[in-house]
C-alpha cells in the first residue's frame, strides 16, 4: 500500500461514489495506490481475506490511466418496499415519470439542499419478481428498479423515494431495503458496463 507524504501519511485509497450507509451493494469500486507491482489476483485474495464476511473483493485490475470516477456514469438500484401495494407504486412511478422536475430536500454536509431528483433518473420501473436481493423473508413487497445518472449533488435512492412522496404521497410503512446492483459506464443502449473492463482488455499485468 502506498502512502501520501507528510507528517501523518495516509494510505492512498479513493472510493468512487460509495453507497450511502444502510444500503446494500453488489457493486462498489475503489482505487488503491501500491508501492510495488503485484499480481492482481493475489491482491484480490489478500484483500478479501482481510475483510469481514459479506464484504467480498471480486476482482482487481491494474489501472490503465484515467480515474475510476470518470468511468462511473450511472448506477443500477433495486428498492424493496415491504407492505407497499405494487399498483400504488406503479401509479406513483407514472406520476414521477410524467413530471419534468421533482424537487426534493436532503441534509448534506453543506446544510439543507433542494435539488431535482427527476432529471438524473434514466429508467424507473416496477418489476415483478419473487427474488429479493436482500434475501429477506418474504412479505408482500413492491420492487422498484432504477438507473440513475451520476450527478452532483448525487441523486440517491432515498431522494427518488422522497420524489415519489412529493408527486404521489407514497409513504412506505417500513424501512425500504435498497441494493445497488451495478454501476459503471452507460452504453448507448442504456446498459451499464463494468468500469473495470477498460483495465481488463489487454492490460499489462504488473505494469503501470
Amino acid at each position: 500500500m502506498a502512502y501520501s507524504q507528510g507528517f501523518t501519511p495516509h494510505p492512498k485509497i479513493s472510493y468512487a461514489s460509495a453507497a450511502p450507509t444502510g444500503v446494500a451493494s453488489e457493486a462498489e469500486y475503489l482505487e488503491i495506490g501500491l508501492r510495488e507491482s503485484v499480481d492482481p489476483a493475489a491482491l484480490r485474495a489478500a484483500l478479501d481475506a482481510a475483510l469481514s464476511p459479506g464484504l467480498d473483493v471480486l476482482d482487481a485490475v491494474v489501472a490503465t490511466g484515467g480515474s475510476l470516477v470518470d468511468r462511473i456514469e450511472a448506477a443500477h438500484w433495486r428498492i424493496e418496499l415491504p407492505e407497499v401495494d405494487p399498483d400504488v407504486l406503479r401509479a406513483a412511478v407514472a406520476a414521477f415519470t410524467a413530471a419534468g422536475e421533482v424537487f426534493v430536500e436532503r441534509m448534506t454536509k453543506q446544510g439543507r439542499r433542494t435539488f431535482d431528483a427527476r432529471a438524473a433518473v434514466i429508467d424507473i420501473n416496477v418489476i415483478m419478481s419473487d427474488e429479493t436481493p436482500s434475501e429477506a423473508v418474504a412479505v408482500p413487497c413492491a420492487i422498484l428498479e432504477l438507473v440513475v445518472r451520476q450527478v452532483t449533488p448525487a441523486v440517491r435512492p432515498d431522494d427518488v423515494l422522497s420524489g415519489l412522496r412529493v408527486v404521489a404521497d407514497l409513504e412506505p410503512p417500513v424501512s425500504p431495503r435498497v441494493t445497488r446492483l451495478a454501476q459503471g459506464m452507460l452504453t448507448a443502449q442504456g446498459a451499464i458496463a463494468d468500469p473495470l473492463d477498460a483495465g481488463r482488455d489487454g492490460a499489462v499485468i504488473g505494469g503501470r
Partner: protein
Amino acid sequence: MSAPSTTPRSAVANSVWPRLEPLLPQIAKPIQYVGGELGAVVKDWDTAAVRWALMYPDAYEVGLPNQGVQILYEVLNEQPDVLAERTYAVWPDLERLMRTHQVPQFTIDAHRPVRDFDVFGISFATELGYTNLLTAIDLAGIPLLAADRSDADPVVVAGGHAAFNPEPIAAFVDAAVLGDGEEAVLEITTIVREWKAEGSPGGRDELLLRLARTESVYVPRFYDVDYLPDGRIQRVVPNRPDVPFRVHKRTTMDLDAWPYPKKPLVPLAETVHERYAVEIFRGCTRGCRFCQAGMITRPVRERSITTVGQMVREGLEFSGFHEVGLLSLSSADHSEIGDMCSGLAQQYEGTNVSLSLPSTRVDAFNIDLAQELARNGRRTGLTFAPEGGSERIRKVINKMVSKEDLIRTVVTAYTNGWRQVKLYFMCGLPTETDEDVLEIAAMAHEVIRAGRAATGSRDIRCTVSIGGFVPKPHTPFQWAAMARPEVIDNRLRLLKQAVNADRSLGRAIGFRYHDGEPSLIEGLLSRGDRRVSAVIRRVWENGGRFDGWSEHFSYQRWVEAAAEVLPDFGVDLDWYTTRERDELEVLPWDHLDSGLDKDWLWQDWQDALGEYEQDDCRWTPCFDCGVCPAMDTEIQIGPTGRKLLPLTPVNGLRVPSDAKQ
C-alpha cells in the same frame, strides 16, 4: 471474468441478525454492531461444549481495544470445544429500539442472544460500568438479581480490577474472579465442561459450589454479611461448610508462556486506540500509595525482550496496524527497556510503524527512550506524572520525584526538540491542603521559565492535567477520607488563578481537570459494600447509563438515589466517601485476598501520614508486603542479555493458503 464465489455469512441458527438488521438504519454508527473484524472468530454452536459471552461494559469504541477481553477471547477460542463471542454496551438509541422490537442483548460475532451462553463474563476496568452491566443483563432477558436466576441463565462472572471489590454488584453477579484471567477462564471452562458432561447435576447451585471450591472464584451468595448497629460491617462469613473463608487472586506467572493477543482484533468502527498493544510486564512495585493497579498486580513479571520482539512482528503482520504500544504500569522500568526500544526502532526504521511508550517516569532516561522511538520521524507525546504538587504530598503518596528532577527532565525534553509536554497530577489526596495544590502552579511556571531559558524560544508549552483522587480497596489509602467535591473544585479554581497570575507564563500552560463530583461517585462504588447495590439499581432504573461519559453521567441522579435508599440502612453517601476508617473496621473486601498483608497496608498508611517513603523491592530488599509468600509467587525480571536481531523485511501480500486460487 472468473468471479470467485462470495463468502457466505454462515447461517447461524440462533442469530438475532434478521431482527437486528432492520433497526440499524435508524441508529448512530451501526457498523459497531456488525462484527466480522479481522481477528474475530465465529464457531459452530452445536459442537462447542462450553460457550462464553465476553463483555466490556462500555461502547464498542472503548471496549474493542480492551486488552483483557481480547486476551481471554483468544485464549478461549484456541480451545477446540470452546466458543467465545464478544458483546459491548449498546447506546441508548439502540437500547430503545431493542426493547420495542424485543431484540435481546447479542454478541457481535454471530449475533447470538447472550442468554443462550453458559458463562457471561464481564471485565470491569472501572466501577463506572456497573449501570451498563444492568442494561446488558436486563436486555439479555436474564433476571437482574442473581438470586432470581434459573438453570436456563448463564453464570454471570465479573473480572477486571474492579472485581477486587465486587460487593456493590454482588446482588447482580453470580461470581467474581480476582486477578489474572488467562488461567482462570480455562479452569472455569473445565469445571463447566465437566458439570455439563455429567448432565448438570444439582443445577446452578452445584455449579457455583464447584467454582467456589477452587478458592479463586468468589461466589457472593455463599457468604453472609452482618452489620453492627452503627452501620459498619461486623463480619463476612461463609453460609455453608464447604466454601473457603477467603478467596484468593489468580497470578499468571511466566508471561512468555502466554504471549497474547497474538491475533489482535482490528476494529471496523473508529475506536479510542488503534494499535497493537503488547504488555511488556505485569505488576509494579514502585509503591505509589494511591495506585490500586500497582498494589493488586504484584509481583513484577517481565515478558522477555525476545518474546516482545516476536509478538510485535507477528501481531503487526497479522493485523496491519501501524502503531505499537509497549504497555505496562511503568514501562521504562523493564530491565531491558533500552535494548527493546533501540532494537524495535532499528527493526522498523524506514517503515510507517510508529512505536510508543506510555511515559510516566520523571527522569532523563525516559527521554532517551522517547528519542529512540522517534527515529521514524514521529514523536509521540511526553507525559510526566509527578502526581502531587508539593514535595510533602509526594512523600505522602510515595512518588519519589523532586522538583529539581522534574524541571531538569522537562527542560531536557524541550532542548531535545519537544515543544510540548504534559504533566499529570492528582487533587484530593489524603492530608492535602490548598498550598500543596497551589505548588503545581509554581512548578509549571518554573518549567516554562527554565524551558525558555534553555531553548531561547518562547515556543514551548506544557499542559497540566489533573485527575480527582479516588481511594481504592487493597491500597494503603483504603482507610482514607475523600475530600468533598466543593473542596476539590475550589482548589482547582485557586490553582487556575495561580497559573494565570503571571500572564506571560500562564499563556504557555494549558489546564485540564475534572470536577470533583464524578470522583465522589466512583469513590462510593469502589469502596462500597452490598448495600450500595440498591443505589446502583435505583440509578439504573432512573435512566443511568454510560456513567464514564460526562455527557451521560448525572451526579444529581446518584445523589438522589443514595438519599432514597441508604438511610434505610442507617448510612449515607458521606459515610462511604468522606469518612475515614479506623484500623479495626472490617472492610467489605477483607475476605478477598490480593496477597497484600492488611497489617502491612496499615503500616504503609501510617508511613504515608508520617511522610515516610517506601523503596521498590526490585532494587532493595523485600519489605514484606505479603504478596509473594501468600500467593507462592516471585519477582520475574531480566535482564536476559538477549538482543533483537534485525528483521528480514517481509514483502508481498499476506494471502491465506485457503484463499489462493
